[in-house]
């Protein structure tokens, strides 16, 4: 589905990623300490950042220079770090924004509201006034309305109350079960390794380890993160 090969990228003259290759897999976890380059890698995957070297393929097509909105049209969806929602729009408007122009748009919204009941409860509330956990649910629902083949999640449980963390983790497992590919950056190493088919560890922008998720011991991964 998504193949990221020998990527180099950064901001201005600062190179952040050095020859990064992400293994293919149904659920791929990207692990690493803060500043390792995880978010940069995901921004590159969705097109907010262009690589200076290497290739990004999606379904066999080279999308390295494609704009983010065109990547979304091809079946990629992105949930950025920090529970991002359009704060001045209501919860419902955040969802309509993506559902507009899609066949079964209303049904897609209803399905997500059924998945996350809090969104239905606060449908008319401005998204900026929702709690962090509700905003994250909204961000995931918004991504899912596009009916993606690949869901890119950047620290979906970061800074969220524990009850909602469990719900979000359950949703990610469910989605993987429904056949959606997932590229996941996650600080909870235990959950990430449980969910992932493959994982990659980044340290200072270099890949220090790759492996199969289920088999990996958290201690081995932590050692690779520290390199």
């Amino acid at each position, binding site marked *: 589905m998504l193949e990221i090969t020998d990527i180099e990228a950064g901001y201005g003259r600062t190179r952040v990623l050095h020859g990064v290759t992400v293994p293919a897999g149904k659920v791929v976890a990207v692990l690493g300490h803060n500043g390792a380059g995880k978010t940069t890698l995901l921004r590159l995957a969705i097109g*907010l950042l262009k690589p200076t070297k290497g290739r990004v393929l999606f379904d066999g097509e080279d999308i390295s220079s494609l*704009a983010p909105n065109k990547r979304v049209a091809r079946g990629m969806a992105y949930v950025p770090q920090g529970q991002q929602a359009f704060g*001045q729009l209501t919860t419902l408007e955040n969802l309509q*924004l993506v559902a507009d122009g899609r066949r079964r748009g209303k049904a897609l919204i209803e399905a997500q509201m059924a998945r996350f009941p809090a969104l239905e409860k606060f449908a008319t509330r*401005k998204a900026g006034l*929702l709690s962090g956990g509700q905003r994250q649910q909204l961000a995931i629902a918004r991504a899912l309305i596009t009916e993606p083949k690949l869901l890119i999640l950047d620290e979906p449980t970061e800074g969220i109350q524990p009850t909602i963390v469990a719900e979000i983790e359950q949703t990610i497992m469910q989605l993987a079960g429904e056949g959606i590919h997932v590229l996941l950056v996650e600080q909870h190493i235990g959950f990430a390794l449980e969910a992932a088919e493959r994982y990659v560890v980044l340290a200072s922008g270099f890949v220090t380890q790759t492996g199969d998720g289920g088999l990996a011991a958290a201690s081995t991964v932590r050692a690779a993160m520290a390199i």
Partner: protein
Amino acid sequence: MDALISQLLNGSAQGALLLLAALGLSLTFGQMGVINMAHGEFLMLGAFTAYLVQQVIAASDLSIPVALPVAFVVAGLFGLLLEVTIIRWMYRRPLDTLLVTVGVSLILQQAALQIFPSQGVPVEKPSWLDGQLNVLGYEWPLRQLFTIVLASVCVAALSAWLKYTSFGRRIRATVHNRDLAETTGISTRTIDRLTFFVGSGLAGVAGVAASLIGGTNSQMGAQYIIPAFLVVAAGGIGQLKGTIIAAWAVGVALSCFAYWTTGSLAQVLAFILVIVFLQVRPQGLFTVRTRSLA
């Protein structure tokens, strides 16, 4: 008391005209952060369009209703051209945009001077705007009432468009968080162009209204651009409700100051008032209430 009523009514009409000029700016400056100093010249284009439409449709009763949508499209297309050729390269560089659009405004003024007589051109009022309406003993010219009605219609249409349509939602989303909008599947380039078209088009509509109240000449845009920017800033950046209140307040202040002093002193006093207000409340009348930055 009579003087107060008359100045309130005159000021409301003046405020409505300012509001029409500021509405487009609330989109391009307030929502997109682009300082477009040529916005006043788009207003001028609207006024000259009204004149040109009258050359084709001699009956002024009909020509003004026809001129309104035509002016919207003409000014909108000029705005679109400006966005596509210049502004698109300058997002997030407000000072560069300011300098370049000052240049564009001068070019448009000179072009108007070359094409039209330097003393300006007459735009005939339709006969249905000839009368007066008696308000508490004051004979209020219908053309002033027309400006208020036109501004109200434009505000209602713009609000409904932003609130209830798919494009409106996309504009609000793009303004709020450009990267997030793009990764949600929105083509932010298309939204930029459309926003600029509508914002500039509204200046064209303002120009038609201005042509019925004052003179139509190459300098008329300069009269409106600074007060319009002040109105948008005083109302709160990107806040339509604030823009409406600020436009009315500035209009009434201008009218009252002009009555008690002189026209040019009134401008100075109104500007001082807005500047003092912005010192006390730099965020303007209204601000965004949110728990998150995104």
